[in-house]
């Protein structure tokens, strides 16, 4: 059986390196899938869900916050800013954190709040939330 050599790296560490059967990733022009012997190409990734099918047929989903993907003849390289496995976070906490931050942003009278920082954090939570919602939808569908 033909397989793909996949490397996933974040700026801080390499999180995965190994053989997989199939990859689905969210490009900025829409979702796409990669099978073995795909033509070489590269694109920018949008925040969303990366789906990896291992050799034994097991499927794993990763919530990523944007990045870059390169497919060449030998391997597939996925560079993402953050990648999280769904079991590492639960949707309720993310939702709560998102609401907290929105509340903080609305309370403009407080002086000791770093609004820029919260804005960035909020965007991150939203993208995570989006990823996990896609994830749940897909689970139902299956």
């Amino acid at each position, binding site marked *: 059986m033909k397989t793909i050599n996949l490397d996933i790296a974040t700026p*801080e560490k390499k999180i995965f390196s190994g053989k997989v059967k199939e990859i689905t990733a969210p490009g900025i022009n829409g979702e796409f899938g990669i099978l073995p012997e795909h033509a070489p190409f590269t694109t*920018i990734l949008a925040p969303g869900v990366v789906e990896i099918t291992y050799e034994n047929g097991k499927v794993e989903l990763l919530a990523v916050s944007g990045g*870059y993907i*390169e497919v060449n003849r030998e391997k597939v390289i996925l560079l993402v*800013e953050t990648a999280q496995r769904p079991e590492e976070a639960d949707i309720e906490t993310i939702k709560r954190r998102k609401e907290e931050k929105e509340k903080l942003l609305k309370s403009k009278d407080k002086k000791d709040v770093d609004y820029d920082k919260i804005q*960035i954090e909020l965007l991150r939570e939203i993208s995570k939330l989006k990823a996990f919602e896609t994830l749940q939808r897909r689970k139902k569908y299956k």
Partner: protein
Amino acid sequence: MATLRAIRKRIKSAKNIQQITRAMKLVAAAKLKKAQERILSARTYADKIKEVIAELIINVEEKEYPLLCENTEIKKEALILITSDKGLCGSFNSNLIKEAIYKLRQCEDLNFILIGKKGYDYLKKFGKEIDMFKYNDKKIDWYDVEEIGNVVLNGYIKKKYKKVNIIYSEFQSSLQQKIKKEILLPVKAEELLKEKIVKRDFIYEPDEKVVLNALLERYIKSILLRTILESQSAEHGVRMVSMEMATNNAGDMIKNLTLLANKTRQAAITKEILEIVGGAEAIKG
């Protein structure tokens, strides 16, 4: 001459200090190892991005990319200075600050972006604008780097800065600290082209320009992360050496003081004997 009791007290405090410095040396060694592991694990990402950019950058018009051309019409420059949060690491921070002040003399209109408390404490007195300040501890991660990167990139794209300079220390060996002065922005295409370039037959989606723009931003951020991690390694390396030296110096001091204490003790005994002998002679006589 100091009394025996005073000397013994000094020996005791020197021993205490030696114990502390020895412990700090071991801690610094452990932290150095961790920091270096972080550099290594960050390398995959940075190297890959550099490779792809080098490949794309050959065929582009520099004018089309704001990050590649200098904002010549503006005078204001930005300086990113990476120092440590804590002291007790020899001349690590003062060397860096000296470079920053040297830069300040060359270019009056300078905004600071400071990473590390020591640099901040010193440079805030100069009354220059500080666009960003971050603590430089082991918790610093990609999120912080993204924040710093966004400040720098936005400032540059909105033509607030002419150039963005960066001063940091690179880890060479734990014995020496190498201060690096680099220009972060504009990105110099020639430097990237020094790497060996493999021209590959690729489809870029949606097109090369979008990919290159997105990658340039990530490239800047990955440089920032690297420099921060490098400077942390350098800090721990320098601290390790200076604490080793402090431990040795304390050892020398203890040796000298012990010698002095013994001499004083002997002198006191000799004096006592002399007094007794003298007293006995007086009674006899």
